């Protein structure tokens, strides 16, 4: 039994913490979110040099062969810095799908470019009607002599505006709701027939609505059988996102404690008031419990099987509940400054709030757990 960081994890943590301290202060991050691109290409190159883009991929393709528990160490630090580079959409979602479902040649070609920092991805999965469901897919791919063509509407595709290539989930057979008949495709977003409505998100990232009108697409891996790869990738993604959430929450707690030590009212630091001390003790407990849940989630999801989805849902519920408490109380204890755009705290609050809406909210996952218990 061991929860200590190993050497690789310690190195990852140190390098990420150093990057955020030296190159990613809050004002720098603000300028990036306000820039046209929305992040820094230089940072992306640095991520490649530091090996972060190679972390979860097989050594055969130039990856580091890192585990899910390695990934959560990095993701937690990225959370502390509110890093907006498209790491999640490219590495955690897109790259993971290619590694899980791509053919041998697709894996070697695409992952090599990704690892070198030359390929950014976005996963176009959700649709306006389906939110977090994997199988409720209407977007379809038709096969003709010239290959596959995709038609449909993909919703809130994170990282899409900067993606070189889209990974698109589409139906090749079966009906809405079926597990069978789902396939993954690679789509060049620059081609005719792709309409992209790009927008910033509330928490400083970029996303888009994408409409495909009979757009040429390359099949990723085998046809009709992508469900397992999508589900496994989304379970990993819940763990990675939760790790980011832990970083965000711990930052919110620390900022609040430090603020309450120096903010004086009624002639003393407000941190001396017991009602506020207990609130911060509650925040602390929620942070620790969420970190514990993260470890459970990482270990269980890495183990695969039916337990993986169950554990991912449990983790997402905890992150949703705890994130809300920690975020709201951090703003509350900062008083008026908590709702000002100027201070970083509000931006961490924005991120933790949006994390709950990603990959299925607390309420959605809670309902999943209940339905599974009822079906058992």
């Amino acid at each position, binding site marked *: 039994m061991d929860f200590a960081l190993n050497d690789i994890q310690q190195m990852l943590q140190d390098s990420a913490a150093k990057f955020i301290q030296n190159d990613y202060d809050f004002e720098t991050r603000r300028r990036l979110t306000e820039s046209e691109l929305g992040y820094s290409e230089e940072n992306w190159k640095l991520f490649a040099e530091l090996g972060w883009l190679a972390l979860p991929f097989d050594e055969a393709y130039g990856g580091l062969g890192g585990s899910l528990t390695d990934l959560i160490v990095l993701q937690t630090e990225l959370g502390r810095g509110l890093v907006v580079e498209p790491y999640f959409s490219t590495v955690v979602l897109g790259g993971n799908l290619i590694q899980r479902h791509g053919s041998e040649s697709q894996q070697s070609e695409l992952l090599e470019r990704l690892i070198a920092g030359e390929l950014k991805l976005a996963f176009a999965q959700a649709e306006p009607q389906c939110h977090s469901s994997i199988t409720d897919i209407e977007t379809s791919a038709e096969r003709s002599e010239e290959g596959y063509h995709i038609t449909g509407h993909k919703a809130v595709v994170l990282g899409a505006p900067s993606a070189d290539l889209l990974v698109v989930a589409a139906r090749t057979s079966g009906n809405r709701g079926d597990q069978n008949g789902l396939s993954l495709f690679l789509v060049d977003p620059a081609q005719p027939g792709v309409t992209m409505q790009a927008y910033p998100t509330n928490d400083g990232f970029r996303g888009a609505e994408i409409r495909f009108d009979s757009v040429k697409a390359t099949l990723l891996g085998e046809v009709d059988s992508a469900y397992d790869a999508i589900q496994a990738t989304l379970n990993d993604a819940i763990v990675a996102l939760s790790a980011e959430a832990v970083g965000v929450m711990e930052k919110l707690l620390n900022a609040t404690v430090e603020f309450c*030590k120096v903010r004086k009212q009624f002639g003393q630091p407000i941190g001396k008031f017991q009602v506020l001390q207990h609130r911060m003790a509650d925040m602390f407990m929620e942070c620790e419990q969420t970190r514990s849940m993260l470890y459970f989630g990482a*270990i269980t999801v890495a183990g695969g099987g039916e337990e993986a989805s169950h554990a991912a849902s*449990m983790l997402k519920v905890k992150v949703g509940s705890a994130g809300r408490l920690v975020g709201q109380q951090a703003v509350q204890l900062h008083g008026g400054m908590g709702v000002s755009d100027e201070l970083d705290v509000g931006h961490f609050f924005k991120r933790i709030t949006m994390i709950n809406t990603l990959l299925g909210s607390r309420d959605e996952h809670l309902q999943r757990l209940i339905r599974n218990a009822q079906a058992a």
Partner: protein
Amino acid sequence: MNIDLTGDELAFRDEVRAFFQNELPPQVMEKIQRGLRISRDDQIAYQQALHAKGWAGANWPVEYGGTGWSATQKYIFNNEAATAQAPRIIPFGLTMVAPVIYTFGNEEQKQRFLPDILASKVWWCQGYSEPNAGSDLAGLKTRAVRDGDHYIVNGTKTWTTLGHYADWIFCLVRTSDTGKKQEGISFLLIDMNSPGVSVTPIITLDGRREVNEVNFEDVRVPVENLVGEEGKGWTYAKVLLTHERTNIAGVASSKQRLKRLREMLSEPPLGMPNLIDNSVFMARVMETEIELKALEFTELRVLSAVSTGKAPGPESSILKIKGTEVQQMIDELYLEASGHYALPFVPEQYEEEGDGIVIEPHFAPNTAPHYYNNRKVTIFGGTNEIQKNIIAKAVLEL
């Protein structure tokens, strides 16, 4: 990061599991199976069976007859005990006074008291709280005044758990009024049979006598019953509190209770409402399971730190609060699961000799008394509010 047990630890787990399956005293085994209450004699028989196995002093150093178990072994033992629904070990002798005696007592005291504690031959109780010293324990007023070779003790201790079973009581008493109030406190061992000691029952909300008030009226206590130095009692008690206390969160037993509830939800016994289709209730079940799973991993994190020789991190401070909160969440789930059969008050149905009304489902009539009684867990051992004060001060440095 892994939660795997080593080969030796797995072998140990199997040995402990076999003990709980095969070597419990028959009368204890039978009562567990029939869901009956454990008596004083059963309790002693159980602890003596552990002693016969060499497992009574789980926390004790080997030189005093302890097991010398690692933190992980203690965790495994507690897990298996909970899974087997074994009685809890009454902590006052084996896990509370013994560490003070073997750490701060003199040679004579060690020889006089430790063997009987280990063999569960002597029943101890705790004399800390007083009617006017609860959370502010250092304000205690029970006084021990030196008179030749004796202390004369006067005062009142309260909430004394199972004091009516006890042969001895370990007390915090005031021996001085000068200086800081903590510095006037001493640690004194008192024979409950001494003239002037009287025990009065306090009936709790479950209608039972579990706690007592203990009065001392001019009780003569030999000075050799003072542990360590006069005026150092507070320090000893604090060391005891921070002394590694495994199982404080009660994770294993909460897991066992939730598991049984889930089984009953799937196949409700006659008389239990069908709750599995009630999504409002099921949401509470799931959230309790999630909180408990998080707590289990918090405990494992503490264990991992301790077993690699590090001090437990700040996460250890939340075990008591979260553990007791989860216990009470489960109490509420059981209350709901009892439906209207939470109403009958028939405590005799859990007694071996009970020959009155028997209500089914068997568990139901006990859920309300247990729920009422178990409000204590967020109050005793330092209220959860005091625990939050400690987190604010010691962890957040506010």
